[in-house]
Every structure is written in structure tokens, then in C-alpha cells.
């Protein structure tokens, strides 16, 4: 059992991180902490994806002339994760801007208080 877990250490860590991020995204009442939770969740998926493409003893996939290692790691997951990281930072920026805007309007970023106030303000 333990051996299996250690064998798959990257994917197990990734799943645990995903769980942590998921729980924070759902349960935190503070908007900023929710965003941190989302970031952790995304990083977890990237970790899982990148670990799938790793090959024991493989070199970075830069096929330079002269030096020619026999084994390279899989370049596809790296490319996907690269795209994913950029998407994730864009969304982080967007949600942080939204949080600032909400703070400017309500003076708080706790979701339960915000909901209460929005209800009062609603038409």
C-alpha cells in the first residue's frame, strides 16, 4: 500500500492538493482565500499532468545538435501546462480585480456579509 503511494508520489500529492484547493474554493468565506484555493487547485492539476509526461532518466526536450541523450521526457504535457499556467494567471488577475472592485463598493470581502448587503440593496 505504502509502496504504491510512494511509487505514485507525484500524482498522490497532486490529488491531495486538488482536494485542499477544492475545499478552500468551496468553503472559505473570504474571497481572496477562495482565489488562493483556486490557484492551488489548478497547480495540482498541472502537477498531475506534468508528472504523467515524465520519463525516468529522460532529458529536457531540447533536441540540441551535438549532445544527443537517448531519452527525452514527453513534451506534450509541458506544452499543455504552459498554456494552463498562462490561462490560470489571467483568471487570477481578473478575479483579484473583481475583489478590489467589490471592496471599493462594500468595504469588505467576506462573502456572507456581502450576501447580506446585496440582499438589502436588491431591487
Amino acid at each position, binding site marked *: 500500500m505504502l509502496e504504491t503511494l510512494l511509487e505514485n508520489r507525484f500524482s498522490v500529492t497532486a490529488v491531495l492538493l486538488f482536494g485542499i484547493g477544492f475545499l478552500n474554493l468551496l468553503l472559505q468565506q473570504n474571497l481572496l482565500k477562495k482565489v488562493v484555493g483556486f490557484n492551488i487547485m489548478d497547480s495540482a492539476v498541472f502537477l498531475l499532468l506534468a508528472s504523467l509526461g515524465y520519463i525516468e532518466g529522460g532529458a529536457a526536450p531540447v533536441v540540441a545538435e551535438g549532445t544527443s541523450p537517448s531519452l527525452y521526457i514527453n513534451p506534450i504535457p509541458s506544452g499543455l501546462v504552459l498554456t494552463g499556467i498562462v490561462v490560470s494567471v*489571467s483568471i487570477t488577475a481578473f*478575479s483579484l480585480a*473583481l475583489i478590489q*472592485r*467589490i471592496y471599493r463598493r462594500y468595504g469588505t470581502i467576506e462573502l456572507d456579509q*456581502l450576501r447580506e448587503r446585496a440582499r438589502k440593496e436588491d*431591487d
Partner: protein
Amino acid sequence: MRPLWENLPFLSIFLAITAGILCAVLRSGKAAWRLTMLTTAVNTLLSAVLLGCLWPAGLSFVYTMGRFAAPYGNAIKAGPLQALLSAVFCAVLALALEGGKRDLFHDVSPARQPLYFTMVNMTAASLLALTYTNDVFTGYVFIEISTISACALVMARDTGPNLIATIRYLFMSLLGSGLFLLGLTLLNGVTGYLLMPSLAEAVAALAASGQYRLPLTAAVGLMIAGLGIKSAMFPFHLWLPAAHGGATTASSAILSGLVLKGYIVLLIVLMVRVFTLPLLEEMGVTNVLLIFGLLGMVAGSVSAIREHHIKRMLACSSVAQIGYIFMGLGLGLGFGTAAGLTASCFHILVHACCKPLLFCCAGRLSAVSGHHRSLRNLRGSAYRDAVAGVGFTVGALSMIGIPLFGGFVSKLYFASASLSSDKTAVVLLTIALSTVLNALYYVPAVLAIWEQPDEELRLHIQETADPAALAFDRSFTVSALILTAGVFVLGILYHPILNVINSGVSLL
């Protein structure tokens, strides 16, 4: 050398993206508006031409994005169904903008208008790409584009409750795309492909050998759950009423009528092209979809009955209508015919036509009543703008499922699809129950707007209402009339449309 028309799908995506970029540098909202309308109209035309080329010949084709053939490069795939859907999506997008034009320029401040149209164009691009894509990772990227632009569409009307609705919407969407990405990762881990045809082969091989059964099931479940969250499938619909109800009219119409559908189209494509229905039935996924769909049909209507706020009521009713679509998907293969799938596709069209009509009319009705949105204050508003009243009535009757209106046909086909499966009784009963519930909130709403207000209230409204808002609204009238005609076309001339859908589903 491929025929020229095969370039049309990519061309329309490209046009939408370019228009989005250009809108951001325009100074005036009016110019951005014109550019957006032009692009959308051109895209509608291109999709219609594509449909004209594909359907009579019964063709579908794969278009490699670049010079690398599958499985090395990106690709998109177009068939009659995709062409039909994208033509309807583009046309409805233009009509929603046209119908909500006055509200839009009233609700969105002038400095923000060009960026608003950037968001609209990017939404259009993501809808088109989600419809056409033949690659799951491309699907993920465009899901994220759709997320950001949809959130921006909600918050363009800058009120406090709207901001909070936006952030709840954003977090739910992020959850959905996170789950989708995780599912995609697992799927890629056990198959090694991203392009749908190669994925389908690998999945079929895995399913036959029974290898990696659990990861495969988990991947399927996660991807469907992710798309389900984003398209407001029943247990995950709580974000929807506030987000769709609070936005400006055009945004509500686009979000409810189109954006939700983009995810569902991707889901349908995944279900048919990659996982295939027999495998999903074997895994029990279709049953889960069926149960959630049935529950959604009831729960959405029940929460709509509680609502007084007309736009939130319409948004809640979207949850119920999405429930219908998922129910159709959940019927799966039935006894060999994918009738549920066809009915779902038809219902996508019906809802894409009806909901924008209802939202535009609701927006217009509340505009002539001093921008009040509660049903109580809309009393008699239909007499102040007859077209809006008629449009709302038509939309409502179609949603209830009265013959001659579009909604009736889709309900009929859902019912007949259920006959060829072993879940006939429960599906028919729920459709009946849901029809009653629909009537329970739409009939009072229609009666309320057509009922003469008493003298006191009328005077009060005349004082509060903006005279400019009471003036004849040409763009709204045009768009409402076209959408109303669309509802009737779907309800009366449904046969050719169903033929297109049938041939499209078989070529998916």
C-alpha cells in the same frame, strides 16, 4: 487543395476574434456596436452558406488547423449540425444585442461600451470554437475564454449585487473548468491523445480490454461534471438566477440563450464522438444525467414559482429547460435510436430562440414601467408596448408547450424518445409535472402584464417612467418580431430542421 467553403468555420472564428480585438481600440460604443453587428451578421451568413453546402450532400469534414495532419496538429470538424447550431447562435446573438440595445446603452457606461462589445465578440468566438472543435484541449482553452467573457458580460451593468453575482458565477465556473481539466488530464494519461478521433479509438480499445477502467470512468465523470456545472445542471445551478437575472437585458439573453448551450454542445460532441453512447450507458453515466435532468426540470420550475423578480424568474426557468436537455441526453441510445439526443438538439434551438425573446421582452416591459422588475409593478405594461407583450406571451406559451409553438415540438419529441427506452413512465410523468409547473409561473406572469392597472398605479407609473423609455423602440420591435417568427417556424416547420439535426447527429 480543399474546396473553398471548408475554410468557412475557421474564417468565422477568426473574424469574431479580430472584431473583438478591434472593438477594444475603438473610442465610441456606437462604432463598436456596428462592427459587432456586422461581424455577427457575416458569421451568420457564412454558417448558413456552410449549412447549404453540407446538408444536401450529407457531408462532414475535418479541417486541420495548420499543415500538420491528425493526430499531430489541431483540427476542427464541421457537419450539418455544427453549421446549423452556429448559424442559429450567431443570428440569436445579433438579435439579442438588437433587442437589448436601448437597455445596453442605458446600463453600460459610455467608456465601457467598446470593451463590452469586445466581450460579446469573444463570446461569439468561443461559442463557435466550442461548436466546431475536434480537440479536447482546444475545448478547454475556449471554455476559459467563455468563462471570462461571460463574467464580464454580467458585471458590465455596474451594480453591487451584480458584482457579487459575478464573483459567485466566476467561482462556480472555475470549479467547473478545474474539474474538466482534471478529467482531461486523466483521460490524456490513460490514452495519450487529445484529438477526438484518436481519443475515441483509444477509449474504445480501453473499454474493450477493461484496462484502466477506474481512471477512464473518473475522467468521463469529471469532464461531464465540469461541463454540467458550467451549464447549470441541476445540483449546480444555484449561481445562475442571480447572475443571469441581474445583468443587462442583452447579456441575460446571450448568457441564458447561448453561453450555456456552448458547453452543452461540447458535451454532446464528447458523448457521441469520443465516449460513444453505448459505453456511457454501460458506465451508468446516462442514468445519472437522466436523474439530474429530471430533478432539474422540477427544481428549476419550483424555484421560478417563488420568484417575483421577472428576470430572475426567467433565469430559474432556464435551469428547468437545461434539465430537459440533460434529460434528453440521459435517454441515451434507448432501443437503438438516439432519439433523445435529437430532441435535445432541437430543444437547444428552441431555448436559444425563446429565452432571448423572453429576456428582451421582459427588459422592454420593465423599461416602460420605470425600470421596475418585480412582477407586481409590471402590471398592464403590455399595453404600453404591445409588441413586447405579444412577444412575452408567445415565448411563455412556447415554454409551457402549447401546440404551434416551438416548445411543444421539443416536448413531443422528448416524450416520443422516452417511448423507445425503458424509462417511459418516469420521463412522461416528469414532463407532465414540469409542464404544469411551467404554466404555474408563466400564466400569472402573462396575465399580470396584460391586466389593466388601476388608475392610481397607472398615474404613478406615468410619473416615474422615463418618457424616453416609453417612446417607440424600433430595434427592439424588429428583433422581437424576428424572434417570435423564429418560435413559430420552430413550432410549425420543424420537419426540415429535424432532418438536418438527424443527419448532423449521424455525421457527428
